């Protein structure tokens, strides 16, 4: 079962996430990234089938910043290929919690589909 945290209601109110939002959260799960790196990560993980456009990306980022899912960070992870003007984004605790909650929600859906034979037993 999912753990209940004090903001459970606030988290649940954000679900379901837009696909772009979920992809950005996933992209930032292992390290801080700048905008273009997010686009590349999403494309790589989906074998190029999802390519976020700059407009969609930054519109999502703006909203996620306002909702407190991500923050801008001043730390530069890889100084050698860093560009001064670039902004890096990092998941917040809330962002992590929301991503987990969304993943759990999706898993629940898959489990239900599997029970009725709509999805393979195990991959």
């Amino acid at each position, binding site marked *: 079962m999912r753990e209940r945290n004090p903001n459970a209601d606030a988290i649940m109110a954000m679900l379901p996430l837009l696909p772009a939002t979920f992809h950005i959260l996933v992209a930032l799960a292992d390290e801080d990234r700048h905008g273009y790196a997010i*686009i590349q990560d999403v494309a790589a993980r989906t074998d190029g089938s999802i390519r976020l*456009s700059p*407009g969609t990306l930054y519109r999502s980022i703006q909203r996620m910043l306002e909702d407190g899912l991500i923050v801008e960070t001043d730390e530069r992870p890889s100084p050698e290929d860093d560009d001064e003007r670039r*902004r890096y984004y990092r998941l917040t605790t809330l962002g992590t919690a929301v991503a987990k909650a969304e993943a759990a929600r999706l898993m629940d859906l898959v489990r239900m589909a599997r029970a009725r034979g709509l999805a393979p037993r195990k991959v």
Partner: protein
Amino acid sequence: MYRWLLRLYPASFRNEYGREMATAFARERRDTRTALGMAALWLRVIADTCVNAAGIHWDILRQDLRYTLRTLRRTPAFALTAVTVVALGIGATTAAFSLADFVLIRPLPFPEADRLVRFSEERPGFPRMELAPSNYRDLKQMATSFEALGAYRGLSVNLVGARQPLRLQGAAMTADVLAALAVRPMMGRPFTAADDVAGAPATALVSYALWQQEFGGDASIVGRPVRLDGEVYTVIGVMPRDFNFPSRGAQLWTAMRFVPADFVDRNNNYLQGIARLRRDVSVDAARTEMSMLAGRLQQPYPKENEQTGVSVIRLRDGVSQQSRTLLVALFGAAVCVLLIACANLTNLLLARAIVRRREMAVRIALGAGRERVLRQLLTESLVVTGAGGVLGLALAAATLPILSRLVPTALPIAETPSMDVRVVGFAMALTMVTGVAFGIVPLLQHHRDRASEGLREGARSGGSGREGMRGALVVAEITASVVLLVMCGLLLRALWTIQAIDPGFRLEHTLTARTSLPMPKYETLGARTGFYDGVLSEIRALRGVSSAAYISFLPLGDMRGGIFPVGISGHVESRREDNVAFLRYVTPGFFQTLGIPILQGRDVRDADHLDGPPVAIVSASFVTQFLPGQEALGRRFNFAAANREIVGVVADVKMRGLTRVSEPQVYIPHRQLPDRTYEWFAPKDLAVRATGDPLALVSAVRAIVQRADAEVPLSDIQTLEQLVDGDLASRVTQLRVLGAFAGVALVLGGIGIHGLLAFAVSARVREIGIRMALGARRADVVAMIAKRSLSLSAVGVGAGIVLAYTSGRWLQSLLVGVSPADGMAFAVAAALAAATAIAGSLRPALRAARVDPVTVIRLE
């Protein structure tokens, strides 16, 4: 290219992310190798930008709306005042615009209405005189400027049906009239040339309203016979619902059937001409042709057609100059109200902006960006004006039926102005402009303050420089309300002046009604005399009746009579401006019934018969004009086809309107109206003088008329007072509307001055407290506030008086001799405006007086 696309995003977003987006896009482009791929990339980017830019704008709008609604809920007094102020301004302007648009601008409800013209004869002194049938026939034969050209005359007939006989208004028209108007019946067929021929079966078209009310909307009406004035007509069709030709409320149309006798007299003018211009002919060209043809007609008929031209005007231009002035004045007044409302709104927003300066400064300091703050303010202003606009539109829609009295009856349009897309568009545009223009004002304010200053000063200071601007706005409001008040005052004085005019007859205790005698049943004197004698003797015998009589047309009624040339030498003369008099036939006792003094000689008598010598009673103005300084009694003159002897002179009465001069009148005994002649002049208006309430006699009179002839309808029942009031109705409405505008303006002005001073006091509480601690008395503080209020109103009133004087001169045509500089109107307007200013400053002054110096200083 991409940078240009980025412009579609809100500036705040672009500033934040634009550069990174451009970088990301540049990389994508670098990674794309093929031309096809490049094209696909561009397509994707354009679509992406459109979707996301719209989305972000929408996000911001939603945020701003949420924020606006929250702040407005926190300040309900502001929200309510602002919305009301806007609603009044937009409502007044929209209502006035729909009326002016309806009467003056909108095309008449006919296809290609700009090609429709009215034409008439033009003689010295009579710029638009009806046409004689022979002149109409000749002009029609020769004219080449028109696609169709027809003639009509007003018609009023009795319809005898199952219920009480009905008096119907409409027109008799030639077949070409409907062709010229390009209107077809909604059911049945229009008139054709075959209907116009003498001896053709009588045919009639009925209005939609008549069809619904009297025939229950029965579809089998076409082909059904109806009895009109005793003659059987066949209904050939029903006209569309919005067909109001020749004027509003027309119920019935018959085919005009000329007989050869109609073409004999070129001085018997009773036709109105209407025509549709050919596509390639202008009004001016048609005018030139018609003048030329009129000139040609003078040669064979030098006497009858002496100095006779033809006037051609657009059907649309049939609105009188007075109606036009009235509507423009009304619209001007409405714009005045709107400007006052806008000034008020600006003031409200400014005061609010000053109070919220700290909040704005904080938001800008927090990085919101000026553009975001501007957007927020605009949204707020648009929400307020939008709500006000919707309310104003509803207000305008609700008041339109009241304004319908100002729609001239002479136009072929419906009574109540309808709101169409253009009117709603006008209101919306007005709302938008108001919202944007006046929403920005507080921001200009912000631009002058720097964010940091706002923070440092806090909300304490009122910003004395801004108060100058707000003061100017209040002055403008007072100025505009003074102008409106003066206009109202002038029009009220004009109304009083008219009401004080002596019509020349006694108004009280008199019942009037119309019994139109159907022709040809009453075309002989014998038939008519039987009717009049029977009805009048029975009415005179009623209890509570002191006298009763008949006349062709009552003074100040809807029919203003007909004019004939006066041949004082005893010879027939052609009609000129200065040789005509009005003709009316009367029964004995008419002058006594209306209380018109007989100055010389005698009343008409029953003995004045066709077999005796033709006699006439003339008005004092007749003597002044035609027989100055001479003995009138016994003189003979030629008039309406006979030489008549003057046997009496009566005092003048107002015939064609209280404000017009009393034109020369000739009253002829009704027993000297020959058979089958001047049937239109056969007396039909009844006047009954009562000893008590005249309306108590109605049912008895109705019974008497019905007994005399069940087919004669009793219509237009009213007291003589009501009849005369009808002459003033549009003036009274106009005054009420303008009065309402002035009242609104005054209230808005009061709100404005109250808002300004209330704000000034709360901004200066600290200063006032310190002054009082230093020994200022409460009276001094109140005087300080009062001085401010009085100086503002003094400037406003002064400017208002100057402006009102200038615009009053322009209203002169409506003022019937009241001077546009009427001292009373100006004094009352100035006093009212000053009183409002004082009332508006009362509360702020008292509040200032109640400031407690101890509390204020402790707060420091």
